């Protein structure tokens, strides 16, 4: 049996409200994801020819609208936030040793930061009408 640790000797001091905040964020992002993922699936799979209509032109057409840019950004943030927070609790529960826990959480934080940066970059810098591309692959509004 493992001795109980002296709380004062913990390597990382967790603020009193941190776990409460994390718990609330988990519920809020969870509820948000139901709406965001539901809307995403409904638009992408249940309109037109369903999954067969999803191609470059379809995505470009969606991202031409600020509404879908914001929708997908929220989806990205809520999904990664919810998933990363869940992984954090798994690491806290199952990784042995303060140092190993901290390392895994740092690795996860870096991965999440990269994914958020890449995802946001794609959403907001996406060029719907790349120069020289075949016209039949592009959305109808490309000249």
């Amino acid at each position, binding site marked *: *049996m*493992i*001795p*109980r*640790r002296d*709380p004062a000797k913990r390597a990382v001091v*967790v603020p*009193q*409200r*941190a*776990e*409460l905040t*994390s*718990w*609330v964020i988990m519920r809020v992002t969870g509820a948000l994801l139901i709406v965001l993922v539901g809307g995403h699936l409904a638009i992408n799979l249940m309109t037109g020819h369903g999954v067969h209509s999803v191609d470059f032109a379809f995505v470009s057409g969606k991202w031409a609208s600020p509404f879908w840019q914001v929708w997908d950004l929220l989806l990205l943030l809520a999904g990664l936030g919810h998933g990363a927070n869940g992984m954090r*609790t798994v690491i*806290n*529960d*199952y990784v*042995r*040793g303060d140092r190993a826990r901290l390392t895994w959480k740092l690795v996860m934080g870096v991965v999440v930061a990269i994914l958020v940066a890449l995802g946001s970059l794609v959403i907001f810098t996406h060029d719907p009408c790349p120069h020289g591309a075949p016209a039949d692959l592009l959305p109808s509004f490309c000249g």
Partner: protein
Amino acid sequence: MEITVKVRRVPEQEGASRSVVGAESSGEMAGAAQPRTGKARTSTAPGYWQTYHMEAKPTDRILDVLMALKSEQDGTLTFRRSCGHGICGSDAIRINGKNRLACKTLVKDLGPGRAITLEPLKGLPVVKDLVVDMEPFLAAYRSVLPYLIADTSTTPTTERLQSPQEHARFEKTTKCILCAACTTSCPVLWTNPDYTGPMAMVNAHRFVFDSRDVAAEERFAALSDGEGVWRCRTTFNCTEACPRDIPITEVIGELKRAMIAQAL
């Protein structure tokens, strides 16, 4: 009927090797510090299985089975018991893999033709055979101040009256008998011995929602750090294990909501 009973036998553990609280200060008993290995935390209880065969009635309690084994077959078999009527909470053990009171479980409840397995509670240090060291469990109990802290700013001149409705708010958590069936059924405790555990939360609820009590904030503080209510993963093991039918997961949910309300 003839039954087969498999009991997890664990040789008596010296205080130092099992001790959890104050191990470093108990002189020569302390010995070398226990290695913190994953195996020690998550493996089943140490020791070996011993198989007994005996005659029992379907209506015999598991406690009767243990008493018969001890008096007729093996006097070294060690377990804890007291009242034998499901109210003292002494004889909670793992029966066929589930935490139950030996005095409230009948042989016929466990299915015919199958060996009955008896193990010490998981997640607490084993003293010997089916007896575990309750000290880490009781330390968690003490941490939530399990007693009435009333407003003493004025000297009371009468009883502290409470309406039936006010009592009903926490009636379900007054039923706890501190048997440890809930806390030691919790997978969070199995991987993390620092976890406060469901029993302490049940007993915090008992006073937090008592209209005469004024120390809810102090109890919330004990339950709010990384090892408190937010570590509950709502697996419902505790609710299933409770021999007093306390809806423990619901109780923990009520505490979480009260703590969020207080934080806002």
